[in-house]
């Protein structure tokens, strides 16, 4: 210390002297006392875990006398049984391999049987020759932290239960938007599949098949914009409107006009919504069926021929339903003969990512679907749906949207609803 500054200050500032005296007392604080009464537990063990040294803080926390632990017990004796297994299978091997391990949550058993949640950090002390000598461990009281973690755990479990409940409600809602089974049409085999992308949301795809008269049936398959509760609401409106309109209007284009008016009126003001849909009418026609269908912006239906081969039924120019007050739709007519299958699908199928190596973002696409159908034909409705299910499963993570598929066929062997 420089004497001149000392001389300047000492007489003039008596407060400083008091402060120095205070520091002096602190500096007298022995390393021994610091060890014994530190605000954390200290524990040193031999390599086999036998306790060699323990500080007063930890003894107080656990309610043991020093002579009850030192030389008599090992560290793992202080753990709960679960903690002991954990110690043997994780902690000790890691410590041995790494020479240190930190932030491990364990519980210690106090002399009276109560449990003390702690956070443990251990290091291996090595001798001059590099050989491990003993293990030094610090123990932090983690009661508050553990209580907080328990709260988090409880909250997480509650959230999981809520989520399960929500999923159950959603799956009931989803089922209510789809027919429980497709209407039986004599001579026709029908099958459908709905892949739901997420159990946490109601999907936006829909389909149905229903009788219109003794030899006439209506059917539709479509996709509304968005998902969730609002999508469920518009899906319900669409199903209701299509079934209703089909009774009053025998022309599929007319039915789509009625649907467009209803959706546009309902949703134009606050929250514009729309859908794509194919609506069709099946009419028995001798030994086959005539199918007339109209499309509102929906991907084209596929026809798999009984004599092999497949082709899209294009309905060009059809607009999305519900966007404009006035929309135009186009119709197509096809005859379903023995062995033929009509397949309708939503774009969840054609827009699945195929993760080809050359282009990980490439989509499955309409050409691939046509090739797929060509490879299948001739195939009845059940066969087509089974093959599509396998195709969808093969997409794995690439299939992130809902996908609905419906197939109607005139099987060689006579039809059943499935």
């Amino acid at each position, binding site marked *: 210390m420089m004497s001149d500054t000392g001389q300047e200050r000492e007489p003039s500032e008596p407060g400083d002297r008091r402060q120095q005296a205070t520091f002096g007392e602190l500096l007298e604080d022995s390393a021994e006392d610091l060890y014994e009464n530190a605000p954390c537990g200290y524990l040193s063990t031999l390599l086999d875990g036998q306790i060699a040294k323990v500080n007063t803080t930890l003894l107080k926390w656990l309610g043991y006398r020093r002579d009850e632990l030192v030389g008599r017990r090992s560290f793992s004796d202080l753990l709960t*049984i679960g903690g002991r297994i954990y110690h043997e299978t994780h902690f000790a091997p890691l410590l041995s391999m*790494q020479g240190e391990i930190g932030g491990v*949550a364990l519980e210690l058993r106090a002399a009276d049987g109560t449990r003390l949640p702690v956070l443990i950090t251990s290091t291996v002390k090595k001798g001059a020759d590099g050989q491990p000598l003993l293990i030094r461990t610090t123990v932090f009281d983690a009661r508050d932290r553990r209580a907080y973690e328990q709260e988090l755990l409880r909250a997480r479990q509650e959230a999981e239960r809520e989520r399960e409940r929500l999923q159950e409600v959603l799956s009931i809602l989803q089922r209510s938007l789809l027919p429980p089974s497709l209407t039986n049409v004599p001579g026709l085999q029908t099958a459908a599949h709905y892949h739901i992308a997420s159990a946490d949301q109601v999907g936006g795809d829909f389909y149905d098949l229903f009788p219109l008269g003794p030899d006439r049936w209506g059917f539709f398959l479509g996709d509304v914009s968005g998902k969730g509760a609002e999508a469920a609401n518009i899906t319900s409106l669409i199903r209701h409107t299509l079934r209703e309109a089909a009774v009053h209007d025998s022309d599929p284009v007319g039915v789509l006009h009625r649907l467009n008016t209803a959706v546009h009126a309902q949703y134009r003001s606050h929250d514009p919504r729309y859908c794509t849909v194919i609506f069709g009418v099946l009419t028995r026609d001798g030994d086959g069926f005539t199918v007339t269908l109209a499309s509102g912006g929906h991907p084209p239906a596929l026809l798999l021929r009984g004599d092999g081969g497949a082709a899209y039924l294009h309905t060009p120019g059809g607009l999305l339903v519900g966007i404009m007050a006035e929309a135009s739709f186009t119709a197509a007519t096809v005859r379903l003969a023995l062995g033929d299958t009509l397949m309708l699908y939503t774009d969840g199928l054609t827009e699945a990512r195929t993760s080809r190596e050359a282009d990980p973002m490439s989509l499955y696409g309409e050409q691939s679907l046509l090739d797929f159908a060509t490879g299948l034909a001739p195939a009845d409705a059940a066969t087509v749906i089974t093959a599509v299910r396998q195709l969808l499963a093969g997409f794995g993570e690439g299939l992130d949207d809902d996908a609905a598929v419906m197939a109607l066929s005139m099987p060689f062997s006579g039809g059943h609803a499935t």
Partner: protein
Amino acid sequence: MDISGVRARNNVVVTGRDDGPVVMLSHGFGCDQNMWRLIAPDLARDFRVVLFDHVGAGRSDLSAWRRERYASLDGYADDVLEICRELDLSRVVFVGHSVSAMIGVLAAIREPNRFAQLILLAPSPRYIDDDGYRGGFSHADIDELLQSLESNYLGWSAAMAPVIMGNPDRPELGEELTNSFCRTDPDIARVFARATFLSDNRDDLARVRVPTLVLDCRHDAIAPPEVGDFVHAQIPGSARRTLAATGHCPQLSAPQATLEAIAAFASTAR
């Protein structure tokens, strides 16, 4: 599944003498093949050493994990046999630590001709006490472990943040790998813990037809000496050695003695 599939699935590592007898080292519940790092290099001088990670552990392919397959020890035994088959191993000296001892027992019962010897390191066929049998734990203890896994992993998840890197089998990189040897997805660890601590393989022991060494530790909280006595008594003609070691992992706490015991027994294989 082809060779590369099984190799990748179980992160199979083959070292040592190509023409040496095969020693397969199988780790237990908790960590991965790094458990053998102190003895594998020495074994590699005389033997062809096959190391692997059980699916769900270490650098195994986690996408291959299936709850149904790995909820019982049979699934792990299937994996051991698949590794043997795909690497075309025969006359295998199988060294199974902890729960892998019973995995080896199951594999050897199924395909006895595949194995020359079993070395059961700190084995236990049943951890829970039963009428007249002392496994060392009660049902409540194991339930406590399973419950405490849930809360312990909250503490562990921070400590065991995944460390992505290339070569955990190279010990010189060890320092970079904080806690990664024992990192396990908590869901997987729970299923493996149940398979380990709730299995009862006592009746399987008498069906072992492969020369067997029961190698345990004098002080082991998980597999106490009485359990070693039981395993030795139940496996016909088995040999028994108790290491003067403390803890459940003698390959780490007493590597030299463990190495010598394994090498001495394995060199008697025919």
